[in-house]
């Protein structure tokens, strides 16, 4: 951690860390502690006074059906996004790893959706699936599916935001899988081939197990992505609707805090979200330590 050869204590190191630490305190630690404090307060109807209510905000949340269903919805959404984007990316990476000619062209053509902002991804998919104008809606009508309207149908709205979120994440997973596959020693694959294992069998018994650390890492990253970074997609495409069908946790924090002005409840939700992020980060770090021990 510290270099064997290093400088003695002086004022300089404090000056060096000062900007980072100042910003961290002002914009991270102070607001986070405010959120923590707020979470234990209840404001009266006019927002003029507030008093300490211990865990009332939390118990209220867990007694609230809307919050609990938002919780469940978030998990369904995150796992769908993670599972879909990981399997598509794994398939594409396996194929890209096989081909010799054109492999770098394929890579270039697949990675750029990473750079598209979530809200723009949302706008694109919203446009394609527009109930009256959308090009995909038109194709759906052509094959006889005429009941597409994500503005009225909650399940369809969920499908739409899941697709948009998945689309944006494929490139990221693809890059990590491809790098992981290229790191697998060729000799292992060749040895299996000599033992007359076919391509499919080699993939499932050698490549896939060796990729499991990458898959696990991507699982965590994708879930965190779906929890937080998809805010733009939800906000632009469905605004949590119809009838809260796409209100995921992070959207609810925003909506209750900024639109509903229910600071106590919004802060309590923030605290719960922080706990979720922290546990996900801990899981990820523990896993990285284990990988180092390999």
């Amino acid at each position, binding site marked *: 951690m*510290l*270099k064997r*050869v*290093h*400088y*003695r*204590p002086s004022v*300089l*190191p404090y000056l*060096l*860390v000062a*900007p*980072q*630490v100042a*910003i961290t305190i*002002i914009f*991270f630690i*102070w*607001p*986070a502690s405010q959120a923590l404090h*707020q979470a234990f307060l209840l404001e009266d109807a006019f927002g003029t006074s507030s008093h300490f209510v211990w865990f009332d905000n939390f118990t209220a949340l867990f007694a609230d059906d809307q919050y609990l269903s938002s919780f469940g919805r978030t998990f369904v959404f995150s796992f769908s996004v993670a599972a879909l984007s990981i399997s598509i990316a794994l*398939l*594409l990476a396996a194929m*890209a790893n*096989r*081909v010799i000619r054109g492999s770098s062209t394929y890579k270039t*053509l697949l*990675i*750029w959706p990473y*750079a598209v*902002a*979530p*809200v*723009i991804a949302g*706008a*694109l998919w919203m*446009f*394609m699936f527009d109930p*009256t104008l959308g*090009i995909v809606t*038109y194709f759906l009508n052509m094959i006889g599916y005429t009941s597409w309207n994500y503005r009225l149908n909650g399940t369809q709205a969920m499908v739409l935001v899941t697709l948009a979120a998945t*689309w944006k994440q494929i490139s990221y997973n693809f*890059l990590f899988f491809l790098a992981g596959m290229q790191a697998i020693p060729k000799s292992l694959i060749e040895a299996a*081939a000599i033992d007359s294992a076919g391509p499919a069998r*080699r993939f499932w018994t050698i490549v896939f197990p060796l990729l499991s650390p990458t898959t696990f*890492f991507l699982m965590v990253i994708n879930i965190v992505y779906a929890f*937080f970074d998809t*805010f*733009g997609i939800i*906000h632009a495409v469905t605004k949590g609707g119809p009838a809260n069908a796409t209100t995921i946790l*992070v959207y609810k*924090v*925003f909506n209750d*805090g*900024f639109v509903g002005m229910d600071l106590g409840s919004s*802060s309590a939700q*923030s605290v719960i979200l*922080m706990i979720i*992020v922290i546990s996900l980060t801990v899981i990820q770090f523990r896993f*990285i330590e284990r990988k180092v021990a390999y």
Partner: protein
Amino acid sequence: MVENRPWLTFISHLTMILGILVVAFPIWVTFVASTHDTVRMTQVPLPLWPGHHFFDNLRQAMTKGAYGTGGIPIGRMLLNSLVMALMIAVGKIVISALSAFAIVYFRFPFRMGFFWMIFITLMLPVEVRIVPTFAVVADLGMLNSYWGLSIPLIASATATFMFRQTFLTIPDEMLEAARIDGAGPMRFFFDILLPMSRTNIAALFVIMFIYGWNQYLWPLLITTDNSMYTVVMSIKQMIEAGMMQPQWEMIMMTSLLAMIPPVLVVVTMQKLFVKGLTETEK
């Protein structure tokens, strides 16, 4: 390749091409939409082949803007986005390099305390602390300014980590040699450490530029003045332009303009981008 199976190779290519077509289809639709006029964009089925109005739409977007953005031209928003993204990327790199230098090369009281404090920021995305952070920025009078857009986002645990890793790989002999030649700490930092981490800085810049450019919730909260809007957040305003049917050709033109800079960065600096991605996440 282990063995020659032409059939399987064919399937691989086919899957790749299909995959790319599916991934690229939304962009093609966007591009096509931006080349047609308003009348064509309200007729079902929408076109799948480009029209002739690309430059008309481009001119209108750059000079007049679209519904929902208060008459602010997209050009102005692109400038705002650029300034914000650059401030965030450069800011993150500068403060993280400095703090990683202090943590790796100096022994001083509370060293690990500072390290953990920075580490905590990794765990707190803007989304989970928006209300109180907004209050802090409002109290500091930083609403509707470039400072407000960028400063609260420039503390970075990821960048600090990456610099720490990089500095740890630099041999101890470098510092010993610099000392013998009589260089002080800052001289060592600027003349040896920074040049030696050039590629890492470039890779970090690519990632952080994209991060900054694509910010959505934060600009949405702290800009109320139309002239401070960023292009990414303006998409949302356009979709919701009053009672009118969304002006799709303008929205798609704006989407196109908003995604070109980061996509160009990724495609032209692919190697650095991949390096940045794999190194900052681990």
